[in-house]
């Protein structure tokens, strides 16, 4: 049994489990599922700086911070107790492409060849981690949600704005991965 759990989980197991978070949150506390708002609550609690957008009672949303701290703990548990002993399997075509940028280590969920503390101070590392992270934080809030809030919660509740947001996420991702990222990775 444990052997099976340690293997990577197929999409038809993981997807429905992630989808069940939607009713779980509604039933255990009338909460709409979402994650990116946690970043806003961190801003509101640590450095509101008198900005109206951060002037609200963040303690009412503290449940969301418990949730993301749980995700962090879940990462620790999965990595230390349920780790897949084999490297991440990737599409051969992707492997060929990544090898041209010097990415050959698939033992971790993040590409350690380019995302590490030493590379942080190179242009490529700065763009990958600092600039990329900034776009994620800025974009999700501007869009009013991320993959969980819009794509999962919003679409589940048949919200047209969420469909528009989700399509925009995918368009942005396709443009970056296929047209811009190859240039960044070649730096």
């Amino acid at each position: 049994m444990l052997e099976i759990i340690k293997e990577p989980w197929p999409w038809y197991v993981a997807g429905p489990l992630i989808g069940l978070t939607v009713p779980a949150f509604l039933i255990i506390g009338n909460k709409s599922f979402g994650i990116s708002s946690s970043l806003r609550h961190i801003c509101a609690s640590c450095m509101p700086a008198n900005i109206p957008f951060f002037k609200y009672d963040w303690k009412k949303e503290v449940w969301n911070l418990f949730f993301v701290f749980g995700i962090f703990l879940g990462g620790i548990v999965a990595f230390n107790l349920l780790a897949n002993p084999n490297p991440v399997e990737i599409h051969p075509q992707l492997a060929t492409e990544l090898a041209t940028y010097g990415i050959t280590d698939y033992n971790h969920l993040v590409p350690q060849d380019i995302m590490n503390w030493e590379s942080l101070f190179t242009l490529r590392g700065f763009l990958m981690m600092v600039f990329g992270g900034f776009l994620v934080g800025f974009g999700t809030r501007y869009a009013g949600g991320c993959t969980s809030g819009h794509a999962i919660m919003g679409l589940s509740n048949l919200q047209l704005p969420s469909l528009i947001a989700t399509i925009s996420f995918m368009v942005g991702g396709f443009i970056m991965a296929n047209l811009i990222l190859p240039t960044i990775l070649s730096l």
Partner: protein
Amino acid sequence: MEQITVIDKDLEIRLQDAMCVNESHLEHKWYHNLKYLVVGILFGIVFVKSEVVSWFRIQEMFRLQSFHMFGIIGSAVLVGMVSIWLIKKFEVKTIYGEAIEIHDKKFNKGQIYGGLIFGLGWAITGACPGPLFAQIGTGATIIIVTLLSAIAGTWVYGYLREKLPH
């Protein structure tokens, strides 16, 4: 009466550019929040074990080299949709007996501009906000930098919000 106005104003601000909000009018002791911690732990395990938090899986998704991520998002939405339909149809209550509320969202241009910006970032970092937390848990301490930068991005958005097209 004044109290109610204050509460509504606060909810109004919290609802700005946010999908996920607390709709409950009940006040609980802090330890009730441990429920969300437990859901978070289970969620984090699913995230890591299904490799949703893998930079490589995100690259495959955006290159149409694998069905994995599309299958996960698609089946999650399907399960969520059926769940909300059932909750509405049978007027399911929360465990505290409260009626379940979900606010509808209005369209604004931010969903397009912001969505595109997030999409660009998603393909670079290989992570949306949730996976960042899980990746740090798996020992990728460098992702702390990405997370702090995402927090900074959120802050800058809040700072510039009034000047941005919506």
